[in-house]
């Protein structure tokens, strides 16, 4: 967890505000807004109803469970998308032209198609079961979301491989390494380090995109929040409830963003 305690970061490449002190200030600020909204809602609430904080606490476990499901989906999707994306990315740098062009087309397709449309596609087009294996909806959602992830990872891999200086390829060739040996023994091990920050960034984006599954009928954090609001049928808790969900995502994604930036800086200094 050392990366979270990075000392002073100057202007280069990163926001000055990603210092430990600033992050505590950030969270403190957000917590203040949240509490203020709860307090204001409470003040505006008729005396006979349950207090706003108590309602929030009552529903928090359920909403948090939904949020954990979002995280579960994000992990599964990232794993699948990464594996597919690595092979697609390597195909993009293949010396075999038809493969390279096909891989480029596939990558561009999945990078430019909206995530929600691809998700719908997977949910509606994939069958309910393949042979004897049943495909539950969350699995279809994972497959659907892993497609744009695959496209983005392919680009990251391509960028990483291309960023290795040609001198490495040349000297490997002079030592009679085959292309496959050069890729797997020399280029990829060095490129992986550079690919980690954008990979982490992609994970953060994906985590936030998992909320899309609520639109196609899968129960996640957002579904739970909406359900809770419908159950309570009060307008004064609308803002605090949504803020609570936003905070859950923020507390998870903001440290990832900071770690990404700090790693980016660290890897940029060396060649």
């Amino acid at each position, binding site marked *: 967890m050392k990366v979270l305690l990075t000392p002073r970061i100057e202007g280069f490449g990163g926001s000055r505000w990603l210092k430990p002190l600033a992050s505590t200030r950030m969270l403190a600020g957000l917590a203040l807004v949240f509490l203020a909204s709860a307090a204001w809602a409470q003040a505006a609430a008729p005396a006979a109803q349950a207090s706003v904080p108590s309602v929030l606490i009552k529903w928090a476990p359920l909403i948090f469970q939904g949020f954990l499901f979002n995280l579960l989906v994000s992990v599964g999707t990232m794993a699948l998308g990464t594996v597919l994306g690595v092979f697609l990315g390597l195909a993009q740098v293949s010396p075999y032209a038809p493969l390279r062009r096909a891989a480029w087309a596939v990558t561009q397709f999945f990078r430019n198609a909206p995530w*929600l449309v691809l998700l719908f596609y997977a949910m509606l087009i994939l069958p309910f079961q393949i042979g004897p294996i049943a495909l539950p909806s969350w699995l279809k959602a994972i497959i659907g979301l892993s497609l744009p992830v695959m496209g983005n990872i392919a680009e990251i891999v391509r960028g990483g491989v291309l960023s290795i200086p040609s001198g490495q390829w040349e000297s490997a060739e002079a030592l009679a390494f085959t292309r496959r040996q050069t890729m797997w023994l020399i280029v990829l091990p060095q490129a992986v380090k550079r690919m980690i920050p954008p990979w982490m960034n992609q994970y953060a984006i994906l985590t936030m995109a998992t*909320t899309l599954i609520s639109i196609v009928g899968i129960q996640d954090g957002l579904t739970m929040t909406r359900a809770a609001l419908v159950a309570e049928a009060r307008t004064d808790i609308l803002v605090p409830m949504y803020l609570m969900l936003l905070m859950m995502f923020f507390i998870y994604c903001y440290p990832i963003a900071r770690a990404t930036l700090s790693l980016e800086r660290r890897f940029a200094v060396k060649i």
Partner: protein
Amino acid sequence: MDVAQFFSWLNDAHGINFSIFYDPFDRDRFLAGLWTTVMLSVVCIIASVVIGVVGAWAQGAPSRIVRAIAQGYVQVFRNTPPLVQLAFFYFAFSSLLPTVADGFGGREPLISSFGWAVISFSLFAGAFNVEIFRSGIEAVPQSTIEAAEALGYTRLGAYVHVILPLAIRVCLPALNNNLVNLVKTTTLAYAIGVPELLYAAAQIWSEVLNVREMMNVLLVTYIALVALLVAAMNKWERSMRVPGFGR
């Protein structure tokens, strides 16, 4: 055989149903949805760029409070899901606003679902743009800024006439990327009932039961939209190219 005849033949003979090509009602619905998506994209692009410019300016402001607000805005909107942001604005925030008379004796919300979509997406994309413009601004050499100040430019004047033109050229690729994402993000408006392209397509396929065909049409249309945007941005980038700068 014209287009409409071809597609109705296709449906009758092979069961491949692209109803939007031969059925005028479906076609009109689809085109209306496409228009809404285009409108939504254009308005959000403009608004988010303005927010980005203003926000990047605010991040360099001398006042600590202004800087704090700008930074808080950026970090919150970048690290929370856009769909939850949209839901927050449409369901939660709108409940705090007054309603207006709708002319029929009832009351309607002050801002429509389209309006909230514009607000939410512009703020979301704007947050990313602030970071993009900020990195572009940081790429402008300090000596250039000093020279501008020595010539008597105010801070605002230097920003508008010297820093911004140079910064934009540096950050065009990243900006391009972000605007493409914005067009893709407009599909989220489906969730609050904005009659954009995905919504129109969903209506059609739920009635006509041609999910597969409509899905393919959707994918092709969105990719075409994005390709158009990218081509326009590339053209703009080329016309603005300064020899020897940046690369």
